[in-house]
């Protein structure tokens, strides 16, 4: 019985391997190759083709900031506002400091119809944001681990040292390491919380009304157009509560939007 089970599992694994093999053979393209093909198509001016190459790369489960950037550029060339902004935002998520991405994203932002002035952040929030954005979440978690390891090493050294001066010195160092560990742990934790609780999306609906309540009895507060970045807050049936950069909130019905998270 057990043997049977094992053999079945092995067989499926084997079939899986073969399948993957076939897929790669039939596509005959590595993601890198597709990316290069996309670049060539873009340079030749065939943006639709470029988009399809880049999309294929994405479908293979691979991504990178340049890939999203190139997709955004292709859509910009095709005058597709919402798609272009969406991919530029994706690129920014992966590489926030890239000047090329920022500049072209500004070009795409120019195409949108809505002028939304973001509310200025407080000094404290700015500092917090700049600290949080120093490293990615993964790096922050690694830093957390580094500090705990350092703390342990230094504390053990303190335990085994005989000289009072050295002992005192190592004790202080270990305390410092512990403090740094706690703070980097807290930062990682809140970054994770932030990422899980805030979900941004790009609006794809041509034009949509923002209601004060999730029903038609409320009032229309304002109107948004495609390409606007919105923050999703809650949802009720076909209604979604959103917030935009200037702090205004409201409900949209049956909106087309694409989350920046996945």
């Amino acid at each position, binding site marked *: 019985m057990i043997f049977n089970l094992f053999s079945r599992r092995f067989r499926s694994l084997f079939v899986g391997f073969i399948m993957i093999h076939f897929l790669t053979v039939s596509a005959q393209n590595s993601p890198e190759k597709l990316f290069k093909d996309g670049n060539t198509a873009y340079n030749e001016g065939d943006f639709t083709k470029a988009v399809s190459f880049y999309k294929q790369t994405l479908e293979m489960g691979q991504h*990178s900031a*340049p890939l999203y950037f190139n997709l955004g550029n292709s859509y910009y060339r095709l005058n597709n506002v919402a798609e272009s902004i969406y991919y530029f935002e994706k690129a920014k998520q992966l590489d926030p400091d890239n000047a090329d991405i920022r500049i072209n994203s500004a070009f795409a932002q*120019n195409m949108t119809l809505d002028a939304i002035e973001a509310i200025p952040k407080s000094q404290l929030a700015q500092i917090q944001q700049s600290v949080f954005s120093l490293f990615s979440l*993964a790096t922050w978690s690694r830093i957390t681990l580094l500090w*705990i390891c350092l703390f342990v090493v230094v504390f053990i050294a303190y335990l085994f040292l005989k000289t009072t001066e050295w002992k005192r010195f190592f004790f202080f160092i270990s305390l410092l390491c512990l403090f740094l560990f706690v703070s980097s742990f807290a930062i990682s934790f809140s970054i994770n919380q932030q990422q899980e609780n805030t979900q941004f999306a790009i609006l794809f609906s041509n034009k949509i009304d923002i209601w004060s309540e999730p029903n038609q009895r409320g009032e229309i507060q304002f109107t948004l157009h495609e390409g606007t970045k919105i923050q999703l807050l809650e949802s009720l049936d076909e209604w979604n509560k959103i917030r935009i950069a200037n702090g205004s909130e409201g409900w949209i019905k049956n909106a087309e939007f694409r989350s920046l998270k996945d």
Partner: protein
Amino acid sequence: MIRILASRLLVSLLLLSTFSIQAQVSFDAKVSKKRLGLNERLRVDFVMNENGDNFNPPSFTGFQVVSGPQQAVSRSWVNGVQSFSKTYTYFLTPKLKGKITLDQAQITINGEVYKTSPIIIEVTEAVEKPNDPNNIDYITDENIKLVAEISNSNPYLNEGISVVYKLYFRNPISISDVQELESPSYGDFWSHLIKIGQVRVNTKGVYKGEPYNEVVWRKVVLYPQKTGKLNIEPLTLNLSLSVPSNRRDLFGRRLLTQGQKTISAGRRVINVKSLPKKNQPAGFTGAVGQFDFDVILDKDALKATESFQTTLKVRGNGNLKLFNLPKINVPNTLEVYEPEHKENVKIKLKGMEGTIEDTYTIVPQYKGKYPIPSIQFSYFDPKAKSYKTVRSQDLLVDVFDGPIAADSQKEITNAPKQIIQTADNTFRFILLNTKLSPIKTASFWNSTLFWSLLTFPVVLLLVVYLLKRFVLERTEDSGSKKQREAQRLARKYLSSAKKAFHDQALFYEALERALHNYLKAKLKIETTELSKDKIERLLIDKKVNQQTALNFVAVIENCERARYAPGSSVSIKGDYEKASSIIASIDRQL
């Protein structure tokens, strides 16, 4: 001489009076004809040559009085002869055929009653050409018509209708002058009078199948602005007419008589339907008719800070002057000025026709591509009885040179509107190299690996600590450890003695008590009552070094001595140290 003159005057006066008395009083009834058709009119004049009272007309049985009595008085002096006549005139129409007797009329003149003689009138079958051609009213009624032609008396709101006032007349009437007495005002309508210029007579007009001369007097285009029943006020004209009379001139031609005629037409009620609410498009601004809609850019590629113009144009026929064009919706970084409105509308009888346009001047501030989304224009087509929506094409303006807008995200943190002015800030080319990574990466944070890597050092630390505590310290030099322990104990017991360093008596009392307490704790026996020898033996029994035991006893003795013989030379500090070292050494040996 004078007498002769006076007699002559008298004679002449007499003559005059006799003449007047001799004048015959007459009172006659005259009829225009004694034989007439049933559809004709009869004029009856009662004429008298003296003024009378109490005129009593006959009963006119068998006739209907059309008009009258009309009184006419004429008085004249011709060559010193006065003539007078007074006439009562009636117009009658017969009610039945046959011989009808017109009864007597009565009047009292100078106190005497005069009567006319009865007249027998013969009424025959209706004749083809009835009536008296002299009667202007009758002729004008028959031969002049004023008509208001309304194209549609049941239009939709804002659907154009036309009203044409036409004057029809035919022989034998000719019109010499027309005055408008009352011009209609079209209160609930948007109205436009179409200029006609010179009035022309169309001699080949037809009214109710008969040939007439036709004059188009006025043309009006109306657009109802309210729903429901709306009144159109009438048009009233005063006509100066020339009508031929039955008198003829020397050459046998008929003489014309002048007459006035007031005629009015066009009191009408227009029932205006409201536009259907069903399926009304969102952007409907009240346009009714048939239209074309277009958005035109004068250029689609330019430099920043140059201007271009976008024209929203509606062409067609309908209430062009009566609705607003839709608004343009452009990207936020374009500067848009108030539109210039232009109309080129001709108003014809079938309504307004032409184009209206709004021209927006737009100045792009930054380089880039700016889409101008399709604009939607909705109107109601009254012919199809449905709403129609026209969309313009999506347009794109390419601004190929100029500053670029900074990233909005950066703007917030830095100064407002930070614009990068350098020339190389063009739209960037794609990035050619990449390092692809899988999209689905499990988050390292919160993963099992992360937590195990986090707990491992902590566990390690604990293990190391416990090892050190329980394994390493046991193998360590136990002597030194015990020594430390003993010192700690001594310090504990001697702490009260240490506090009394300043007072010798108190110090030694405390020291002695501390030593006894120590033994009590260590040997579990009460030693205060014991002699020093006994203590010494006890200590030795417990395998304490003899020297140490002796020292211990010596310290106790010292204490006693100090207590009972104060002032003896003793060293508080020395005794304290000795006591602590003895306690430590006993402790080690026990």
